[in-house]
């Protein structure tokens, strides 16, 4: 346990030194400024979207940046010749991304609560936020581990971002409505968005459980079945 904590601390230090933590925090601070300046009606609508940006698509980019630094420096291969299991190393990296998600959550939601008077269910929102990070980092790892370089990852990322945000747009445009809206939950970003809406008291039980199960299944299946094996191969290649 002490070793895990030490590894986690080292990973956070690494993210700080490589300014990955800084850029994540900077984006959250920009959202916080927007929230502080907006009126309460706008904030109620804005907060879930802004937290979603940070914990969803943003976490994929930050993870990819962290990954390519390591690949470039060859440190991934050096991890293979240490007593620490690759699964533990991955777990620490994911925990660090979840930590960044929590920091972002605290900055954005904290600002909203300090500057505006509105009701929000903090704990369910935080839980949804962590699920969103877990699901999106899993997808981020799949994209990153199957991309030759950062540029090819960005191309894939753009495609995935378009796909994941499509349900939000289609619902907003009225193309998806009623039961068809459930199809939108196939997008983890949209599923997370629905969970975030729950924090403001606007979700039915079916949508809630479908979203929770789906977001939990993504990391639960992708990490052991796809990511771990692929991570080992990429690390071996150096």
């Amino acid at each position: 346990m002490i070793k895990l904590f030490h590894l986690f601390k080292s990973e956070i230090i690494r993210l700080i030194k490589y300014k990955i933590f800084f850029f994540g925090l900077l984006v959250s601070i920009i959202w916080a400024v927007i929230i502080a300046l907006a009126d309460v009606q706008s904030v109620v609508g804005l907060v879930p979207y802004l937290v979603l940006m940070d914990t969803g698509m943003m976490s994929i980019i930050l993870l990819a940046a962290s990954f390519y630094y390591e690949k470039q420096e060859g440190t991934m291969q050096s991890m293979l010749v240490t007593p620490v299991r690759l699964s533990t190393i991955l777990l620490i990296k994911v925990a660090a991304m979840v930590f960044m998600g929590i920091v972002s959550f605290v900055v954005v939601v904290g600002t909203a609560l300090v500057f505006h008077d509105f009701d929000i269910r903090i704990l369910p929102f935080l839980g949804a936020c962590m699920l969103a990070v877990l699901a999106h980092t899993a997808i981020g790892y799949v994209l990153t581990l199957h991309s030759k370089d950062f540029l090819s990852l960005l191309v894939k990322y753009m495609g995935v971002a378009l796909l994941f945000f499509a349900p939000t747009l289609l619902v907003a445009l009225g193309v998806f409505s009623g039961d068809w809206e459930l199809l939108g939950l196939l997008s983890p970003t949209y599923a997370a968005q629905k969970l975030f809406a729950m924090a403001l008291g606007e979700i039915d039980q079916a949508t809630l459980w479908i979203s929770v199960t789906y977001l939990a299944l993504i990391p639960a299946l992708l990490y052991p079945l796809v990511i771990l094996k692929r991570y080992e191969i990429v690390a071996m290649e150096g």
Partner: protein
Amino acid sequence: MGKVFEVRDLRFRYPKGAKDVINGISFAVEEGTVFGLLGPSGAGKSTTQRILTKILSNYQGEIKYWGKDLSAFSKAFYEDVGVGFEMPVHFNKLSAQENLDYFASLYKRNIDYRELLTRFGLFEARKQMVGEFSKGMKVRLNFIRALLNDPQVLFLDEPTAGLDPKNAKIIKEAILEYKRAGKTIFITTHLMGDVEQLCDTVVFMNNGVITETSTVRDLKLKYGKKELNIEYHEAGKLTARSFPLGGIGKNREFLDLIATKELETIHSGETTLEDIFIKVTGESEHD
């Protein structure tokens, strides 16, 4: 002395490879020795080291580590093993100290690396970002990193490649000191100077097969010419002569020559390891 590694009929092919890159090699690494695996680029040295360090699996043949099947060892294997990669491996935006702290945290057993930082001339720069280090500093830090867990077996891939003579000497002295402490060192290199100064046993590889296994001394005896070469001055000119070593003390011509001429140099005809490398592998060491 026990056998640290016993390798029998090792074969390996990369998953997407068309043919085996290791073709049935066998050798043993004795405890407390420096074992050199030599050969030109692409000979299979690094692949062999990657198999012995368990980075690569799915090999054919038998590898025993302290008498037990290597594949049976868990990640705890690395508590006793240190690996220095050819390319220095560090987090460039962390300081030397932060790098060492990070990697030290991965092991149960740690040495006090500050003494090594001092010895390798890096103590003053310990808080400097590694990305700002020169190549020599990075290589020295790489070496310290491999020693962090006080390993019983140390793997070094081209440990002095690209270093100036002063830095190379520091690394080589440290390797010999490690050996004197009873540890085992496995070196892959194509630098014959290192081999001559460090290795107890040398194995030459080429195209995935072992072409020669011996000691530096025996190799020199085997491939060297048993002759004595003399340079001397005669009539204002520098002249060279060779004499067979056998019966040299009774060779009247030789005895007369050393008694009457002004000698410039006397050398035995032993060959250099560079020459042996070319003979054994059929390639130049820099190919």
